[in-house]
């Protein structure tokens, strides 16, 4: 039988170390909402989401209360809208009507984000993909709870540089459209390479075409718990360090597994996967950068950071895999700058640059995440950054992403406030040397060779 010390340990994780389940995300297939009549598409989408997800938030709240573990977010991911709207949408504005419908549905069921205003263009772009992409700036400006993503490459197909070039302009335009809110629209827009079909985390969540009609995916968290556990092994060997991370990750993931099973049972929707990512929040003590410091770095970004992060990410997976029946999604430590107080401190201290962040993404996380850059950054430069990050993903057979915010009207040294879970960020300098002749080439980068690995 459970003893008092085990009970105290669990409750201490929740009360003092910010243990929580970061998100229950319900994936919903919308392919059956397709039609060549736009108002019919809108109506079907609204109906399907509001009927399938009507109990999502209340179920999450009940589980939270009964088990005593906070469930921070309840969210929805949907089939990429470029597929659902293909037959009905003839202009970008047609797509915006779907965005507004999704926003209305999200408000009705009470979720805090809905992801899947997306296009998968890793090799080529259909007319409807392009229309959706071109509608993103207006869609982001006229909705509140929509997250958008565009997958521009994969290990199997190479990188669609036409899409990369377009996304540089779309990000800039989205920033302009939402400049009165510090270009907040870009915080809900991510460009991916090797995007997974079952990611429960925003902004890159969508419900892939390989999935069930509806599915429950859960994202666990708990950087604070790992950090506190490591405080007790200061100065110990790597063996002890790694064992401690693994054991802690196991415990954290078990909570996610329980919540996922319970939510799946109560909602009558199959359980998909647990995403093993360590996801920070702006709250003090809930930071991935703090773990890196605890491992032995003065600040995230110091020499040794990439190695420490590689170790951390691998041990989290090793511990978490056994704790869950199905693991998927992104499953890598997140290092979003604005959402992690330790990362913000590192930028302010001058320890962390975009180039170091890019190196860190080779071994973990999903990429350059929530990075604020000067508003006058050129679209071609943004495309260059996206291409670099996509290349890392393509060659290393991993997911990578860029969620970058050119904050219109602000420059290096200023701070931008996004609010809530999105946090705040110091604006980081960008290498300003020109890459436009490179990104303006047409076509795509071929898929990489998969042998002769060195």
């Amino acid at each position, binding site marked *: *039988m*459970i*003893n*008092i010390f*085990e*009970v*105290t*340990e*669990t*409750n201490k994780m929740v009360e003092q170390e910010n243990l929580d389940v970061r998100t229950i995300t319900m994936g919903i297939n919308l392919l059956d909402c397709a039609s060549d009549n736009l108002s019919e598409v809108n109506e079907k989408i609204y109906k399907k989401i509001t009927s399938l997800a009507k109990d999502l938030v209340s179920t999450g709240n009940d589980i939270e*209360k*009964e*088990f*005593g*573990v906070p469930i921070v977010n309840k969210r929805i991911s949907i089939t990429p809208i470029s597929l659902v709207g293909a037959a009905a949408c003839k202009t970008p504005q047609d797509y915006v009507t779907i965005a507004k419908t999704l926003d209305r549905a999200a408000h009705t069921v009470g979720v805090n984000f809905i992801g899947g205003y997306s296009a998968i263009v890793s090799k080529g772009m259909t007319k409807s993909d392009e229309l959706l992409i071109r509608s993103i700036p207006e869609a982001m400006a006229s909705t509140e709870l929509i997250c958008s993503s565009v997958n521009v490459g994969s290990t199997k197909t190479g990188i669609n540089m036409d899409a990369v070039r377009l996304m540089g302009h779309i990000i800039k335009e989205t920033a302009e459209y939402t400049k009165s809110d510090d270009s907040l629209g870009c915080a809900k827009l991510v460009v991916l390479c090797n995007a997974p079909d079952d990611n429960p985390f925003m902004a890159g969540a969508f419900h892939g075409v390989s999935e069930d009609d509806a599915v429950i995916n859960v994202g666990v968290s708990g950087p604070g718990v790992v950090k506190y556990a490591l405080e007790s092994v200061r100065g110990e060997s790597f063996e002890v360090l790694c064992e401690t991370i693994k054991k802690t990750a196991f*415990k954290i993931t*078990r*909570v996610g*597994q*329980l919540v996922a099973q319970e939510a799946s049972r109560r909602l009558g929707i199959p359980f998909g996967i647990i995403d093993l990512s360590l996801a920070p929040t702006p709250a003090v003590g809930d930071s991935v950068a703090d773990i890196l410091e605890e491992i032995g770095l003065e600040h995230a970004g110091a020499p040794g950071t990439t190695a420490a992060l590689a170790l951390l990410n691998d041990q989290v997976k090793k511990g978490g895999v056994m704790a869950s029946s199905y693991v998927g999604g992104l499953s890598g430590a997140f290092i979003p700058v604005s959402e992690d107080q330790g990362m913000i401190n590192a930028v302010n201290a001058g320890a962390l640059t975009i180039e170091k962040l890019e190196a860190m993404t080779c071994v973990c996380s999903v990429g350059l995440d929530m990075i604020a850059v000067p508003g006058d950054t050129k679209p071609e430069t943004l495309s260059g950054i996206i291409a670099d990050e996509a290349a890392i993903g393509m060659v290393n057979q991993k997911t990578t992403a860029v969620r970058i915010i050119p904050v219109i009207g602000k420059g290096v040294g200023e701070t931008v406030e996004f609010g809530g879970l999105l946090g705040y960020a110091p604006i980081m300098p960008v290498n300003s040397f020109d890459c436009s002749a490179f990104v303006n080439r047409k076509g795509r980068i071929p898929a990489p060779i998969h042998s002769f690995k060195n």
Partner: protein
Amino acid sequence: MKKCVITVVGKDTVGIIAKVCTYLAETGINILDISQTIVSGYFNMMMIVDMTSPSKSYDDVISDLDKLGEEIGVLIKCQREEIFDMMHRI
């Protein structure tokens, strides 16, 4: 059987167990196991209880225990046992 774990943490005082147990008895909740320690003046108790057929809803029990905790000056939590089992047992 629907097992739950009730934890009581706070400054030690007379009658904590009595008050909690009285409430549980009145609500039809059977106590299966109690363990208790005092660490540097702080009272730390864990009860495993059977919540199969309480006379009130789970929500009400939680908020009643919250209120009772406030009256006594301790923190009372009631959670389903599975969370601890999942975390600490393979």
